[in-house]
């Protein structure tokens, strides 16, 4: 009961902080008499949802598709490649250094190239989100699969355990916390990737919408777009946290 109370208090404080920010925002605009095109009030911002013909729902769906699609692809490819590496040391020695170098490329700089190759639209933006999200997942998973206590290895060997048993019983579950640590970092990056993609070239999506309304100085709509993008990111991050909570024992979780 005590524990429950302290947890409830913890969450209450978090909610309070958000409400205070909203209040500060409101007071700043109201008391400072800030013009709407510089900074809209919370009411004006949420009002933007009903104003104009912005196709909010379509744009939300497009951006969400890019974020979640790119992220899912990054998860499959990142974890998949890392798994391949644990089974082929040669491939790992050959490809991993290359990937470390490729990771150094600012993925945003690839944007114009991706447009040249794939035109603009949902697919290239998904690719953008993928390219930026795949590396943290791949590199942390590969690291997690490599981390294995030498004595534990001896224990398995002394019982003539097979390579497959070592993999399924020790390596893979042991790597799970690392995979989630990479997934959390990637969740934030995937959102940035999709939006940058939309900035560079697209005809739909929340990032595209921001550029459109910037021209007409519809700042409330820009604010609303930022809030919606943030909410999409939070949804993805929350989903990852939920999965981690279900799949990884408390003590084994890696902070990230």
């Amino acid at each position, binding site marked *: 009961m005590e524990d429950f109370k302290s947890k409830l208090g913890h969450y209450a404080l978090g909610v309070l902080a958000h409400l205070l920010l909203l209040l500060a925002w409101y007071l700043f605009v109201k008391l400072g008499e800030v013009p709407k095109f510089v900074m809209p009030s919370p009411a004006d911002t949420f009002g933007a949802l009903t104003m104009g013909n912005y196709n909010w729902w379509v744009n939300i769906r497009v951006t969400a598709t890019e974020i979640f699609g790119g992220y899912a692809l990054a998860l499959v490819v990142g974890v998949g490649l890392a798994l391949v590496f644990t089974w082929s040391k040669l491939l790992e020695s050959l490809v991993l250094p290359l990937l470390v170098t490729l990771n150094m490329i600012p993925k945003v700089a690839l944007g114009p190239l991706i447009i040249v190759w794939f035109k603009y639209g949902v697919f290239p933006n998904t690719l953008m989100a993928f390219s930026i999200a795949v590396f943290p997942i791949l590199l942390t998973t590969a690291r997690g699969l490599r981390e294995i*206590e030498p*004595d534990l290895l*001896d224990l*398995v060997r002394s019982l003539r355990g097979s390579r497959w048993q070592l993999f399924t*019983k020790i390596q893979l579950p042991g790597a799970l916390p690392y995979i989630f640590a990479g997934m959390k970092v990637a969740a934030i990056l995937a959102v940035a990737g999709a939006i940058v993609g939309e900035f560079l070239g697209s005809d739909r999506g929340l990032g595209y919408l921001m550029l459109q309304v910037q021209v007409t100085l519809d700042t409330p709509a820009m604010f609303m777009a930022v809030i919606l993008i943030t909410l999409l990111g939070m949804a993805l991050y929350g989903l990852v946290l939920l999965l981690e909570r279900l799949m990884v*024992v408390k*003590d*084994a979780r890696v902070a990230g």
Partner: protein
Amino acid sequence: MSAVQPFIHLAGVSKSYGKAHRKTLAISDATFDVQPGELVALVGPSGCGKSTLLKILAGLHPHDAGTVRLGSDTHPFDPARDIGMVFQAPLLLKWRRILDNVLLPAELLGLPMGPTRERARELMAMVGLAGQEDKFPYELSGGMQQRAAIARALIHDPKLVLMDEPFGALDALTREKMNLELLRIWKESGKTIVFVTHGISEAVFLGTRVVVFTAGPARMADNFQIEFDRPRTLDIKTHEAFGAYTRRIYKLLGME
């Protein structure tokens, strides 16, 4: 035949690591026998080769020269399933409950799970962990975790249990308690135990026999029986004979 065939027979065992012209001697002159049901303590400083010898016994490392024979006509030995190992760290899998950790060797060996689960519960009770079956490792103290590691080493009913400084990471009081517990577990299980330690008094207190190793160069220096009435209690540490045994070891290690 009057002499009982030893369970472990070592004669002139040596091993070195490294390339031809830059070899480091890990162990040499290891010659001693272990009777079935003995608890032999291998004692010596770091780098004397006692852990190497343990790995040779576990079949994890080949030896360069000498004879290593495990098992006898009356006590046949199957290298694939007759070894139990306990290390300095408990090495419990963080994502498994204690009972499932204890079951790991049985899973690796493909033993039938029904009766093995029953046995795991009995073993947990024997090592003093009754009621902790469904806990996760992080919920247990270091001493409790090491008890679980001992139960894990016994689950597949191995004939030989190899312990590599199992209590080295515990605080002094817990360590003394675990020494008493080990003597009880050893008596109840009837296993042959080879126990590596750098604690001289621990070796004398636990061992039916103590084998002393010295470092630089790594070699076996002495091998003698410890005669005390059983069951041993902490009282024997104040006996004159106990002091004589420890002095003998200190002298061999050049510390007197």
